[in-house]
Every structure is written in C-alpha cells, then in structure tokens.
C-alpha cells in the first residue's frame, strides 16, 4: 500500500497541469443550442490538437495509449483546472467510441474513432423506447435487411442532445422471431439519414430547455457495414457499453464534486457565519459530505489500484454507486443552503439548474436498481432474482 506516484507519473501530471492552465476555456459554457455544440467541439478539438485527447485510447486513432493511473491523473488535473465538462462529447468518448474499440472492425475503427477525439462528431444514444422503459430488452424498433442495407422503422426516446448530434449508437430488433435478448443489433446511425425525424422534449429545469429528443425512424436506411459486433449480437455489445458508462468517466465527476463541497462550505460560512457550522443541521450534512467525498476519492484510487491487480471489474460498481448517491445529496444540500436564492433560476449560475437536474438522476433510479443487482450478484454472490 502506498500513495506515491512514479517519477514518470509526476512528470505527466506536471505537463498536464501546465497545458491545462494555459489552454482551459475560460468562457462560460452555454446552456444549450448550437453555441453549446460549438463550444464542446472546440474544447474537444483543443485537447486533441494539444495531444491530450483520449488518454487511454489507442494511439493509432489519436489517443495517448496510456494506463488507468495516467487517466486518473489527467482527470484530477482536469478537475483541478476547472476545465469545462463537454457533455455533448460524453456518449462518443465513453460509450460509442469504447464500444467500437472493443467490438468494431478495422474499417469502423478507422472511420469513426478519430472524429470523436478530434472534436468533429457528436454522438448520441438511441436505446430507450416509449414503451420499454426499465425493460430495455423489450425494444421494438424494427430493422430488416434489404440488400446491403438495414431498413429501420420505429421510435427512440430520451435521447440526450439528439438534436445536436451527428451520429447515434442505435439498438434495433433485427430478428423478431428470436428470444428478446437474441434478436437485437447495435448500429452506427448517421443523424442525417433520410427518414429520421426528431421531436424535441422540453425538460423541467427552465422554460424552453430542450435536453432530450424523441427520434422517429421511417424506413431509414443504414449500410449493413455499420452493424458493430455482428448482426443479432447487439445485446451483449450494448451490455459492454453500459459497462463503460460511468466507469472511469466518473472519476472526473467525483473530483469535481469534492471541490463543490468545499465551495459550499465556503458559501455557507459566508452566508450564515462561521459559528453556524457547529452542530448545525447544514453543518452536519456538509461535514458528512466532506468525509464521504474523501472516501469517494479513496474509492477512485482503489478502482485504479484494483485495475492494476486485475481484480474483478464488478468491484468498480461500488465506487460508481457511492459517487452517484453522494452527488444527489450534494445538489440537494446546495439548494437548501442557498435558501430563498433557490427560488431564482438565473442563466449565469448553476446551483438551481443542477438541483433540478438531480431529478433526472432519481429517474435513473432504474440504473441504481440495476447497479445494486450487479453488486448483489457479482460482488456478493447472492442468487439471481
């Protein structure tokens, strides 16, 4: 057991810090629309041009080909530099890209990976359907093979930022006769394909905030070569994608939230006076969060340590679950602490926006249920439900 990083790691950290300090975008990230898309792509391109995109991606596609320790260091410095979260790039960097790295063929890798890292293409997800909420595998969007094309008809919903995306990782049913997990394919879908229509869905964070779209596919045609991991093999491909979700990407969040708690302590001290923290209800919740944040960071270090020892990746689900829970508590407490300010939802401050956003996380309760099933079965060895 030790906390020391190697001299090479230290050097990497210093270079990352230096580069980030010089290059991090200082402008506020726009809350939506094309400005947000342009901002996120520009910041991604900046990282790529600087040689810092894709720390753990293969070098041949523009990545740095480094291990998880370097990834950790990069995220630590990224959060410390208060670098912006380019959420629009999230699906490409953390789902679509890694899926193609793991399951794609040479052509698919060549065609799609670099454009994700270089800030050219935004990816979105097309998994959920209007009548298949928690029961993902019951999806009905149909695709039949016609020559060397797939012809897709159906609908997807809760596609974050679909209206700002270029590409979509799409799950379709290619064999309606097979058992429900066996007839699904994972497809790279171009959002400019004729036959696709989008309906924006406004969300509750503020009037006219579009976050989700619903996608309607009417005989939309996709080349068969865009199927990743083989026809009708999409379920297992998708499951590995879900595995990437909130994997190492959460490290950044965890660090960012730890900073936020420190900021909250400072704001609370300023607003209520230093003495109030003594035994106060807010003080007590802040203190517990401060301790929990330290633990979450230690859990992140443990995830990296375990990966070095090749311990079962299921153990990482413990960290993910913890970080998810703590984030919700942080946002709720932040809202409580600002008191009457919580009734204002200004464009230039995120506290209320993020509080309301946590209700999307509550929805992801489905996800938290699934996570806890995984922990129960794969970590603790309990019988399947």
């Amino acid at each position, binding site marked *: 057991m030790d906390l020391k990083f190697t001299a090479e790691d230290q050097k990497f950290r210093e270079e990352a810090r230096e580069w980030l300090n010089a290059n991090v975008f200082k402008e506020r990230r726009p809350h939506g629309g094309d400005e947000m898309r342009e901002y996120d792509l520009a910041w991604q391109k900046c990282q790529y041009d600087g040689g810092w995109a894709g720390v753990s991606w293969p070098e041949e596609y523009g990545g740095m080909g480094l291990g998880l320790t370097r990834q950790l260091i990069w995220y630590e410095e990224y959060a410390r530099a208060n670098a912006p979260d380019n959420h629009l790039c999230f699906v490409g960097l953390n789902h679509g890209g890694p899926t193609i790295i793991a399951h794609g063929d040479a052509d698919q890798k060549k065609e799609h990976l670099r454009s994700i890292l270089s800030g050219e293409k935004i990816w979105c997800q097309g998994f959920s359907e209007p009548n298949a909420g928690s029961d993902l595998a019951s999806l009905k969007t149909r695709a039949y093979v016609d020559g060397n094309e797939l012809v897709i008809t159906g609908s997807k919903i809760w596609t974050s930022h679909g209206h700002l995306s270029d590409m979509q990782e799409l799950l379709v049913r290619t064999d309606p006769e097979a058992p429900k997990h066996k007839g699904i394919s994972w497809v790279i879908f171009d959002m400019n394909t004729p036959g696709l229509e989008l309906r924006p869905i*406004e969300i509750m964070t503020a009037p006219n905030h579009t976050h989700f779209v619903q996608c309607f596919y009417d005989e939309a045609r996709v080349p068969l070569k865009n199927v990743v991991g083989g026809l009708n093999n999409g379920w297992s491909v998708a499951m590995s994608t879900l595995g990437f979700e909130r994997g190492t990407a959460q490290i950044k969040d965890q660090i960012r939230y730890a900073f936020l708690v420190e900021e909250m302590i400072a704001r609370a001290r300023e*607003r*209520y006076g230093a003495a109030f923290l003594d035994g106060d209800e807010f003080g007590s919740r802040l203190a517990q969060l401060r301790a929990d944040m330290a633990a979450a960071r230690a859990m992140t270090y443990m995830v990296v340590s375990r990966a070095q020892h090749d311990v079962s990746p299921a153990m990482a689900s413990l960290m993910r679950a913890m970080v998810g829970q703590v984030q919700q508590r942080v946002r709720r407490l932040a809202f409580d602490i600002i*008191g009457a300010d919580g009734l204002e939802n200004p464009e230039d401050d995120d506290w209320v926006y993020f509080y309301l956003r946590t*209700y999307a996380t509550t929805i992801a*309760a489905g996800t938290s249920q699934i996570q806890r099933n995984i922990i129960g079965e794969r970590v603790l060895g309990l019988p399947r439900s």
Partner: protein
Amino acid sequence: MDLLPSDDQQQIVDTIKDFLRNEAPVDRLREFGAIGNPDALLWPQLGELGFFALGLPDDRGGVGLSAAEEMLAFQQFGYHLVSPGIFGLVLGARIAAFAGEDALRDELLAGGIKVGLANSRGAAGAADEYHLFEAEEAAWVLLVSEEGAALYPRDAFSEIVRVNSTDSALVLERAKLSGAPRVAISAETDNIHDRALMLMGAYAVGVSEGARDLAVDYSKIREQFGKPIGAFQSIKHVCADMAIRSEAALCQASFAALVMDEGSPDTPFHATASKIVACETAVRNAADCIQVHGAFGFTAEANVHHYLKRAHVADMMWGSLREQRRRILTFPTPA
C-alpha cells in the same frame, strides 16, 4: 369533535372544486408557464362567488364563516396550483377590514385588483431585501410578519429587478423596501401571521394531494413488463407513503384552523406545525411523483415539475422549514 367538513362546508368545497376544475385545470400552466400566470383573470369571478371573504366576520363585510372554511378553500387553491397572489387578496382584504378601510376591502374582496406578495430573502439578502411574487402589475404588495401585517403600494419598493423564477409560472422580482405601508394592523388587532402560515399549510396540503393523485392516476395507466406500474410494490409503496404524508398534513391543517377559530393560545404552535408538516410533505410528494413518472416526470410535458417548484415557493414563504423548525421549539407545550 369532528375533523370532517360538515355538509355546508362540503358544499363550499364542491363549488370551489367545480369552478377550478373548469377554469383552472393544471394543464393551463403548460401553456402559460413561461410567461407568467393567468390566474389573475379568475379573481373577479372568485370574488363574485365570495371565496375571498369566507373567513371575514359579517360585520366586517365578510361571509362570516370561520378559518375552517378558509382552510378548505386554500386546500383547493393549492390542489390546482392557483397563483399565490390569492393570498394577497384574502389576507389583504382582512387587513383593510380590520383597519377600517372599507372601500379598499370591498375592492379586494371583489377581486378587481391584484396584490403581490413580499417575502424576506432571509439569509440570502440584507434585512430590507425582498422577493416580490406576482407583483408586476399589482397595485398593492402584502407584507406579513410576526409583529403585524400591512399593504404597501408597489412604489414603496425600489430597485425592483425582474429575475428568472424557478417556478416559471410565477413572476418574481427582487426589490428593496424603502417606503411606508399604506394600511397596516398589528398582531394584537388580528394575528394575520398565524393565519398566513395556517393557510399556506392548507395550500401545501393541496399541492401534496395534487402530486399524490397525479402519481396514483399515472401508475394505474402506465404499463411496464405487461402490467400497470401501480401493481409493483416499489411504486405502490411510494404512492402509499404519499398518501400517509398527505393525510398527516391535512389533519394538522384542519386541527390548526379549528384551534385558531377557538382563539386558543396554541394557535401559533399549530399554525407553525401545519406549515412544517405540509411543506415538507409537498416537496417530498412532488419528488416522489417525479420518480413514479420515470423519465417522463423530468420533462416539462408532464405537469409534475410545477408541483415541485410551487412546493418550494410555499416552503420559502414567510419562513422556510429551517426557520419554522427553529420557531416551533420556542412555543410552550400545547394543551
């Protein structure tokens, strides 16, 4: 002893229910949500039906009923997320009535003018800094404190700045109080502060029940894994918890109104308890209602979010849960 409404009281409730069901379905907020609240258009009709005067003595120009009827009315106002401007009219008319300003009283009872609400920004601002709700075109602004209650002309406030309201169905402004009240009464004349807390408790009960019913209705219709989601224990138990909390809040609101009508010294205690229980419930029920709705609950298309945001407004008005919890410990043990 009977906590249930009498037949006469139930008739008033039914009349209000019918009126609001037709004139103020919650769906209206979807249309007007982003640009302010259309409810002021209802004030003249509600005034004509006598709903602003229920709890005012008849020798002061009111209908001559009690706090219980007012409580029942505000429960319905909350259920339909009626603009909180309605507190301005009802409590404003009471101030005018007890101050002997009969002309103003009658104008308010008729619902012909708007009364905004001023609320201290608490730790979020200096002592003279307020939030104004629904005060944009209002002639008057209501200010209630433990010491007394008053109507201010809008121009008693300076540095008025419109801000984005978290509850986007409401018009919210920041302002400084720099002028004097036009009409004011002290707490000794009539304790409007207790009444305001009690009625806000009743309003929050309505919000809680609205969220509960929305969740229950949805969980009877929405199917997953081949059956209505309300058949799954996880959803059923969430709905049951919403019902338990709503019932607790309703019972305490009723109790508080009756204690007030008796003129009991426990009135501040029970009014405060009512606001605490109801506001806590309103926020939790709204949050649970979002959860029951799944991803749909997070959209602006579902009405759920209006309940959550209004619950936070109800909580913050005249002192949040944090302040009210602090206050309730200062009262002696009630009888």
